[in-house]
């Protein structure tokens, strides 16, 4: 049974996969069956059986590393000497890190607002039109692409070649510029515009998410409210301003905060498209660079903690709003 531990051929690997699936199904089945077995199981047993494994895994996989990261952030690069808040001071005062914090702020402000705004606009415009499904599908498609994939796609879109004899443009955007008669641009090189060109990629991905949630919320507005408003003479923009937006306010907040959380930890796009060069680095990318490439565990941990602290209020607000939406339903 050596192949169970060291699967070498494709067949062995496939068989191993099936075995793993069966094992998982059996274990899950046993757990579900066992918990259901006693006629009136004590509440503690049910809670323990379902919650216990997750709590253990969370403690081991999330809480412990989290505490450990906070601890490491007070030590120097090798983790041997206690240096207090020096890493944090460095992260907030050094020019290069201030740039990183500024970029992250730009991301967190721009992506959620623009993506949500576009998503909302789109949802309202295509609502109850003939081609709604296709239109929504088109906008939703980028959601299925990984951030790395999107980064690579857009890197091609922004690709720069000079406009001269014997040179073929390979970047879509620059080809368009050349056709219209402009000079090709170094989109990813010029600060600070390059950050916005990266942000555009994230917006491209997230608009679909915003549109889906908001579209569902719009459809959930009770018809009698809409009819009453129409009887009162509300049309178009007025309807949007006084009925649609207030009715879906909780959903809007959830969408904005969810996207903001995803944006805070943006890493893949920056890393694939510029590697954090040309002044485009963000906190998550800098955290990776410091921890793993420059081998500065302390500073990397401090950056991770800063990110963590920024996310907490968003998470709290998000969950509270989510509860409110659920209460309304």
């Amino acid at each position: 049974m050596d192949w169970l531990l060291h699967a070498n051929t494709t067949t062995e690997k496939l068989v191993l996969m099936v075995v793993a699936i069966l094992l998982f199904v059996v274990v899950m089945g046993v757990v579900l069956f066992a918990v259901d077995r006693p006629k009136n199981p004590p509440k503690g047993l049910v809670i323990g059986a379902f919650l216990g494994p997750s709590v253990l895994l969370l403690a081991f996989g999330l809480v412990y590393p989290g505490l450990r990261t906070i601890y490491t952030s007070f030590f120097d690069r090798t983790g041997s000497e206690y240096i207090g808040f020096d890493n944090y001071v460095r992260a907030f005062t050094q020019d290069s890190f201030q740039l990183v914090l500024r970029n992250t702020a730009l991301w967190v402000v721009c992506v959620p607002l623009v993506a949500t705004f576009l998503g909302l606009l789109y949802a309202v415009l295509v609502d109850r039109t003939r081609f709604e499904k296709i239109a929504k599908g088109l906008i939703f498609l980028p959601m299925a692409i990984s951030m790395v994939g999107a980064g690579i796609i857009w890197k091609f879109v922004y690709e720069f070649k000079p406009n001269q004899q014997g040179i073929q443009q390979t970047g879509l955007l620059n080809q368009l510029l050349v056709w219209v008669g402009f000079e090709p641009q170094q989109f990813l090189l010029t600060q600070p515009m390059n950050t916005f060109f990266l942000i555009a990629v994230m917006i491209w991905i997230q608009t679909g998410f915003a549109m889906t949630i908001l579209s569902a919320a719009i459809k959930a507005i009770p018809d009698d409210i809409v009819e009453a408003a129409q009887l009162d003479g509300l049309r178009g923009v007025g309807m949007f301003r006084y009925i649609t937006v207030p009715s879906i306010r909780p959903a809007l907040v959830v969408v904005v905060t969810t996207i903001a959380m995803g944006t805070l930890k943006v890493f893949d796009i920056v890393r694939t498209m510029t590697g954090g060069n040309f002044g485009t680095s963000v906190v998550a990318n800098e955290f990776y660079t410091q921890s793993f490439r420059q081998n500065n565990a302390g500073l990397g941990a401090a950056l991770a903690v800063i990110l963590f602290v920024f996310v907490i209020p968003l998470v709290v607000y998000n969950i509270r709003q989510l509860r409110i939406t659920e209460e309304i339903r």
Partner: protein
Amino acid sequence: MRRSSAALATGAALALVLASCAPSADDGGDDSTDDTSATAELPEIDCAAYDEFGDLDGTSVSVYTSIVEPEQKTQEDSYQPFEDCTGVTVEYEGSREFEAQLLVRLKAGSAPDIAYLPQPGLLKTIVTDTDAAVAAPDAVAANVDTYFSESWKGYGSVDGTFYAAPLGANMKSFVWYSPTMFADAGYEVPTTWDDMIALSDQIVADGSMPWCAGIGSGDATGWPATDWVEDVVLRSAGPEVYDQWYTHEIPFNDPQIVEALDDVADILKNPDYVNAGLGGVDSIATTEWDSAGAPILDGNCWMHRAANFYQTQWPAGTDVSEDGDVFAFYLPAMTEGEKPILGGGEFVTAFSDRPEVQAFQTYLSSADWANVKAVTTPDGGWVSANNGLDTDNLATEFDKLSAEILADPESVIRFDASDLMPGEVGTGTFWSEMVKFFSEDKSSQEVADAIEASWPQS
């Protein structure tokens, strides 16, 4: 009933996702070992050299490295004679994230038996920050004393202890050009720095762009520019200053280094010289290094400074020879008498002292391995500083040229300085500031000052 079957279905779906991730972790590369017998006849090796390590049959050695496909196959093929001799299985694992992941693995206590470190600076970090590295056995030290020059042994040592024997070697002081284009235009290969500048001016006067350059390389963007600077420091300031420079006996912003940066700027930041077919000076920062030389083939530029391993970057079918489509000349020194060379290479570091690991280290440091590797690399692009390497075994004319220059007693070889500097500088600010040198047009002095400021205190 409906609920529990739904739960089962969810569970199965989850398991599918989990299981599909699991097997990919160990795709070591066993598929490629089967067809090794088909390759060219391997040189005979002396199995007796491994007797002193005892009976090793059935044991295995794990190797972790940044050398991935297509070079991975030629590496694996070159282990075959050793495996046949000793019965040891070499488990090869290549990763593009090697530098970052190796330290993670060392800290997590799951060190590989052997890693090929591309930077002596990384070896130093590992030795000082962890106690994972194991000093090289006597047999390896003996091999290195026999087959390598003193300086190569020094790069594999930390604080007087010898850890790592050199594996492959890079010869970086090359300028790629097109011999046919040069012949048609009546240009001569320059033999001094001034000749090269004069040639560049000549090309400009003839209405063309002499240089192409690119330093993009994913998250390692910037390293090709550090090679430029190192080559120039070695030429304008000399090997002694070079040694003081990377050991930080003189500051990074020493006037001699700033001057070298200015010399680089004279070529790479001169809009008349660069960047043919790729844009203006700032396009150097965004152009990928591996495609930067391609415009030579289209006649858009004439010269591209890149190491010997650039040979593998030319499109298939390109004639790389002394009078073919492309070839390289030695990046000239200031005067004709000197021959400073910028080199690089990997170092075999062990994290275990089991006999089979030591036997494998011994094999890799022997002349036997160097010759086997040369034969198992039929397409070329590989050389070693091992003087037991028979250059006839090397595949291409160009590799022979590289090996000859590396072995030339006139050559003054210095290792890539950025690989010797502490990580924060060598793979950190030196890279990122060189990017700003081009992308933000930072001055030589500003760049040098910024790098000096980042040099670790201790």
